[in-house]
């Protein structure tokens, strides 16, 4: 059940830059640190893409509002 990996080529200068920062982090390897950073950045990008989506249709709003009122969650 181990994680599987793929190779990615990055510029040597970038690798060196990340490697230099490694002692200031909790990460053991450059690969771990890059995975962390990429996940962090992708999460922000994906969050931006989802912005502006409508949460509820008017019908759904009415239905939920009725139920929440019946249960005493809204006045």
């Amino acid at each position, binding site marked *: 059940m*181990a994680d599987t990996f793929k190779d990615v080529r990055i510029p040597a200068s970038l690798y060196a830059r990340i490697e230099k920062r490694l002692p200031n982090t909790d990460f053991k390897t450059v690969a771990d640190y890059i995975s*962390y950073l990429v*996940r962090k950045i992708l999460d922000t990008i994906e969050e931006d893409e*989802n912005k502006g989506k409508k*949460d509820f249709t008017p019908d759904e709003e009415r239905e939920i509002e009725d139920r929440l009122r019946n249960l005493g969650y809204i006045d």
Partner: protein
Amino acid sequence: MVDPHGGRLVERVCGERTRRVITEQAREFPCLPIDADLVKDVKNICFGVFSPLEGFQCQDDFDGVVGHCRLANDVPWSIPVVLDAGEGFARSVKPKDEILLVTAGKDPVVVAKLAVEDVYQYDKTEYVRNVFKTDDPKHPGVKASLEKEPWLLGGKLDLIAEVKTAFARYNLKPRETRYLFKKRGWKTVAAFQTRNPPHLGHEYVQKSALTVCDGLLINPVIGRKQPGDFTDEVILASYEALIDNYYVKDTCALTTFETEMHYAGPREAVHHAIARKNLGCSHFIVGRDHAGVGSYYGPFDAQEIFKQFPDLGITPINFRAFYKCKKCGSVVSDKICPHGPEFQVDFKGRVVRQMLAEGKIPCDEMRPEVAEAIMRYKDLFVL
């Protein structure tokens, strides 16, 4: 408001016509009886509490979760959500079959339809060592896992009947909590997970979170309990009393999270956070030894694990320790009180329980209205 985990709120509930047809033709489908805990999983999947899961996990997701806390699409997920089956049943179904999940016992109710995608076996020892960090059968989560059947069925679910519990009125679905938060204008919401009535320390933690968030969701876990635990009705009544008497109107909501406790410590803390993110919470309060049991986990392991997930999408609020300080004259945390241990008075759960059982109000530890609400019940604890 925060996006649902994985970007989309899952809702998999059959329409009225499909429901009627399936119920009428139930005899023609293979039926698998499931226990009350699995019924809760089915509901949590189908109403989106476990978004982005659309069903019980197939092997690629299962391996990712057990191995490194990620689904096959790299979305963080820490506790496997799986359907176990005995060898006979597992060998009788194959991918693309449709089966019905029914309540166990007399007069079975058809709960959901499962479109089987995967039938697989797994190594239980590796499973428990990864998920629970121990294979000690005395650990309640390990014990329950080792008792599971040896085969797992994965595939998408469609809910047919919502089996309600005694506390259905508190069991809001993600779309309902999300609507409620929006209606109240809460952009940031802190979730507080609990299995106990509130003492002054809990109130301090919750109100600390409320000073930085727009709203607070108190979200007790309702489910199978250990003997000696407070009963669900006592927990809910005690919180109603606290909210009525000590919270500013419309800053706090009380709803339940119906699920089985696994006692998997750090991994379960992440699991609990994901469920609350789906309910619309932006923050999750993590205390000492969250979802732990015995001494299997370090007191702050459940806080440390969040560092592995920069893409979790819900922010932990960590509390290391809170207690009463005789010098400060109030409930404090180690972060704001400079005084030494000689001034600290810890909250003593055992004393509180004892006093409540004897009908005495533990004034130093608990609001009197909360204690009175608890003592209105004859049976405070699970037998």
